[in-house]
């Protein structure tokens, strides 16, 4: 399909400005668009100055948790001489999310530039880009860009003659959602099963190969060159004090115009769904929305007037997550939708924690049974009970991730569950 999938607001295309322009993928095309100027600026700065600008900009991690990026970089040891690593998390596999893919396949050099600047800030000499295995078409584009940048001296020994060296290696995953969790990613990168580990040790103290490591999402890193080139005040012209900047949205489900849109943080969710994406097709009404990717709590159609900042989405009882609203119209069986989501988490549990391994399976099984018309009213209590058991007791938050949509769907759409159990009928129209 043709590009651009974006809103016409000129002011909010920082990350996506050159999406849809095939020439932007090449080094020469990228340089014509002002590419690698920020890297030049960063090479003249001390590492801590770069971190300071990013701190001031208020940039927050776009991998889902929204952790302040400059603060994360500040945790890295300051002394030189020891190996440090940066991992670029390109494992994008949260159901609903498809933004890192667009950055990598349209503007790979933007991400590479961000990786280099971040590496300089945290004193890393090697960046591993961990790309999810399925992204073969994307990795072809990325690989070509990395090689081109190497050959032109932007990556490798003495970057642009500065005396500062940095390598980049592209690494392919092989189909495991949990490899997107930062410690799972590091386990996988070191040649193991993608099993998360209990923190501490935190990556900045002990990450890959025993060395201080920072893990950042693709979109986070792609936001960095603009900040370094234009300053933190420039970045703060968008968004709120706590959530500055722009964000790539991934809109999917029942929408007239699904796709990626870059918007200033804070635009009301209802505006994104109805004005930008055209609402549900065929004149249907929206029934429910999971706003931040499949691991965030459901909102009802009446709850969409919230401000899409980290704090605004939290106040609305959900979270910004990866800014990936999955929209369900009035004809949607929410039980079936929830069952499909639960099935995913059951499939992707790495199995280290009993609560998660068994609990996610159980949830999927119970939901399947209710969907098949064999549910009992006590199943609802069992599901609530499982929500309790899966919250805050496991090594990583994959277990919590299924609780968010499950508990909220039980709270907000209980009639759907009861109708399936008591009448073997759906409340969807």
């Amino acid at each position, binding site marked *: 399909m043709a590009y651009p999938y974006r809103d016409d607001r000129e002011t909010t295309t920082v990350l996506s400005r050159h999406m849809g322009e095939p020439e932007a993928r090449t080094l020469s095309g990228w340089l014509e668009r002002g590419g690698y100027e920020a890297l030049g600026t960063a090479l003249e700065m001390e590492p801590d100055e770069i971190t300071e600008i990013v701190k001031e900009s208020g940039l927050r991690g776009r991998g889902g948790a929204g952790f302040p990026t400059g603060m994360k970089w500040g945790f890295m040891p300051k002394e030189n001489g020891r190996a440090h690593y940066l991992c670029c998390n390109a494992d994008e596999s949260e*159901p609903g*999310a498809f933004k890192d*893919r667009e950055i990598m396949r349209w503007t790979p050099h933007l991400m590479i530039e961000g990786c280099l600047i971040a590496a300089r800030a945290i004193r890393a000499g090697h960046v591993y880009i961990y790309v999810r295995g399925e992204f073969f078409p994307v990795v072809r584009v990325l690989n070509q860009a990395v090689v081109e940048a190497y050959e032109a001296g932007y990556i490798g020994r003495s970057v642009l003659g500065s005396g500062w060296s940095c390598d980049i290696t592209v690494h392919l995953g*092989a*189909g495991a959602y949990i490899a997107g969790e930062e410690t799972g990613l590091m386990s996988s990168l070191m*040649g193991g099963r993608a099993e998360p580990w209990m923190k501490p040790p935190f990556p900045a103290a002990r990450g890959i*190969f025993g060395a201080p490591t920072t893990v950042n999402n693709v979109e986070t890193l792609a936001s960095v060159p603009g900040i370094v080139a234009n300053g933190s005040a420039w970045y703060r012209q968008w968004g709120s004090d706590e959530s500055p900047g722009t964000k790539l949205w991934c809109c999917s489900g029942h929408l007239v115009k699904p796709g990626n849109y870059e918007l200033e943080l804070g635009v009301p969710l209802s505006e994104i769904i109805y004005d930008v994406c055209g609402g549900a097709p065929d004149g249907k009404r929206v029934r429910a929305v999971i706003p931040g990717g499949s691991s965030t709590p459901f909102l009802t159609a009446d709850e969409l007037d919230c401000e899409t900042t980290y704090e605004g989405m939290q106040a609305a009882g959900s979270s910004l997550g990866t800014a990936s609203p999955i929209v369900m119209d009035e004809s949607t069986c929410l039980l079936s939708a929830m069952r499909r989501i639960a099935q995913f988490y059951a499939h992707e549990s790495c199995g280290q924690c009993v609560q998660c391994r068994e609990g996610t399976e159980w949830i999927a099984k119970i939901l399947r049974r209710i969907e098949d018309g064999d549910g009992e009213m006590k199943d609802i209590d069992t599901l609530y009970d499982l929500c309790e058991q899966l919250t805050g007791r496991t090594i990583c938050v994959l277990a919590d991730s299924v609780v968010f949509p499950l508990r909220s769907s039980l709270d907000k759409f209980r009639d759907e569950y009861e109708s399936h159990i008591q009448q073997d009928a759906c409340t969807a129209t």
Partner: protein
Amino acid sequence: MSRRIHPSVAGAQPFQLAERDPEAPLFESAEGQERLQAVLSRYPTKQAALLPLLGYANELHGWVSKQDMESIAERLDLTPAYVWSVASFYTMYNKHPIGRHFIQVCTNISCHLNGAQRVLKRFLEETGTRPGETSEDGRYTVIEAECLGACGFATAVQINDEYHENVTPERVSQILAGLDGNGS
């Protein structure tokens, strides 16, 4: 001759291709040696080369056999049991041979909402297979996949190393016909 692969991307080559040579030696060839050395040069430990090399075996052979795991284990000073424990964790390394066209239909939430089950059903009907089974002529294997990261373009289908997006049941026969010159 294929162009030399830059070491920075040697461990990240697409590894599910229609063209494969199940009989090709893994490391007892100039290409195999070059790939092994290029991958090893990028990591401070040998073990970290494990995923890239499992990917290489899958790329070359279409699947990863027990012999492949043994020769990788040997090159990386790991035990075959360890290599198996890692390989079995990841769904994309095929543990047995599969059809020339490996068709993965996403049925996760966004695709589910847009009729993915009907798309899956149509692929199974048109190839005359059941999920995970290879058609008798060896051409097709169809499976249900988790989110492919293309949710706005539902239904997303991956066939070997290519994506097909906005797939509807009506488009299935056309897609199959386009896979190789003599499609059904």
